[in-house]
């Protein structure tokens, strides 16, 4: 009897705990009245949307930080998170193709989708991904100031349509953010004005930087990787090295966070200078992440152009 009476509070505790466990996710998923929840898939889009909405809405990354978006496979807990969103902002041109299937499998298959790239003049995919006569596009439009500005304007307009009460604030925030982004590019170009060359023959390890290089009037002569993170075969590597020599490439841009042994082989064989860009898909989600990483990318580019000057 005493044993039983001792157990009773425990049972109540367990029951209360179980109820709380069931109730908690529901409470976490339910949006507080008036404050919308907008989902994002990639780091740059977190920064864009966080700067556009400010405190007026919540930005929810559906993929936890630390996953490589190039190799991400949807998980049930991430799909569950979509059920609590009011809209989702997508890259939509190949970098988050998993999102469509996740939305379809979620509690909200008709979730409004903002196509951030709707107004961006897209470039054909680079390297081995270039096929189907330009039908496959380069999905890295976020690695560029101008195309980020275009995406920020589209996102602000579409979110304003979904949340009319805050539309004016979103538009104003987007303009202020775009001005800051443009300033990053202006600062980089100001450094270049004093020293450096404006023309450069460039190769990249990953075909992600065409949009960024277009802003400086540069074109990528060769892309090394067959696909992101996939090392070229010895034959492909030999061919790439021969191509680089033939094209007289001056600079190779590789990637931070994806160190590859063969990149050193290329550098040793060709003697070409090597610099590393950030793909902006690592670390914690943060409103200022895009500005920080992009400033670093622009500094890298300016350094490369300055050092290549005769």
């Amino acid at each position, binding site marked *: 009897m005493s044993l039983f009476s001792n157990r009773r509070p425990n049972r109540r505790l367990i029951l209360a705990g179980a109820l709380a466990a069931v109730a908690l996710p529901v409470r976490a998923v339910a949006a507080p009245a008036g404050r919308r929840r907008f989902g994002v898939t990639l780091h740059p889009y977190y920064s864009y949307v966080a700067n556009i909405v400010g405190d007026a809405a919540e930005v929810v990354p559906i993929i936890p930080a630390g996953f490589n978006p190039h190799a991400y496979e949807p998980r049930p807990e991430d799909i569950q998170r979509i059920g609590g969103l009011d809209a989702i902002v997508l*890259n*939509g*041109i*190949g*970098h*988050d*193709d998993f999102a*469509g299937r996740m939305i379809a499998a979620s509690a909200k298959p008709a979730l409004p989708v903002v*196509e951030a*790239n*709707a*107004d*961006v*003049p*897209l*470039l*054909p995919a680079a390297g081995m991904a270039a096929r*189907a*006569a*330009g*039908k*496959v*596009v380069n*999905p890295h439009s976020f690695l*560029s100031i*101008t*195309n980020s*500005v*275009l995406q920020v*304007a589209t996102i602000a307009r579409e979110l304003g349509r979904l949340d009319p009460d805050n539309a004016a604030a979103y538009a104003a925030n987007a*303009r202020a953010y*775009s001005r800051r982004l*443009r*300033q990053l*590019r*202006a600062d980089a*170009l*100001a450094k*270049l*004005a004093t020293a*450096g060359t*404006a*023309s450069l023959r460039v190769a990249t390890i990953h075909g992600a930087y065409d*949009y960024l*290089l*277009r*802003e*400086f*009037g*540069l*074109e990528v002569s060769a892309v090394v990787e067959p696909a992101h993170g996939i090392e070229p075969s010895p034959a492909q590597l030999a061919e790439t090295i021969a191509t680089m020599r033939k094209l007289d490439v001056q600079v190779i841009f590789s990637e931070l966070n994806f160190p590859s042994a063969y990149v050193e082989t290329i550098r040793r064989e060709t003697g070409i200078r090597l610099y590393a860009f950030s793909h902006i898909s690592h670390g914690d989600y943060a409103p200022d992440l895009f500005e920080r990483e992009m400033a670093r990318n622009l500094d890298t580019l300016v350094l490369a152009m300055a050092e290549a000057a005769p």
Partner: protein
Amino acid sequence: MHHQIVRRAGAERETLWVLLAAGVILASATLAVGLRAAPDAEAPLAAHLIDSRTGLTAAEQGLYADLKAAGEEIVALRTAAGRAPTPEELAAEALPPFAADPSAAARGGHTWTFAETGHEIAYAGVSAAPELAGSLVLRLDGHGADIWLKRAAEAPPAPPEDAALSAAGWKRIVSTFTAGVNR
């Protein structure tokens, strides 16, 4: 007396069935591929249009994106100030491609002028190096931006209307949105 005919060892019948099955598979695959073929390439663009993805040089692609982004900012500045900003004012705001920076020099060194006719404003950039990037016109009429290109160091006709631009050999740049192929 009991006679039994024993078929000689061989696989004629099996071979026949395998060949038949292969033939059926090939025929149905050919039929399926024939019926589900991807549509032919889209109709070629009209003579006065040019595609931003396939028709432009690297420098022109960069300038086109910059002009699209500038269009939104110019509309906002015009609404705030009650008049359209001049190219010099846009350069002072460090707004590409109007800002005179090393990037502008590397992409054709355009000289920008500005004309306002009624509600429509047009910014014309005459290229100093048409082999890198042609001359460009950005037209804003309150409904969006129109961007025209001609690969010559040439100013556009005044006023830069559709018919006049087309007649003078200018082409309007168009871009299409293509969703990810694995969506």
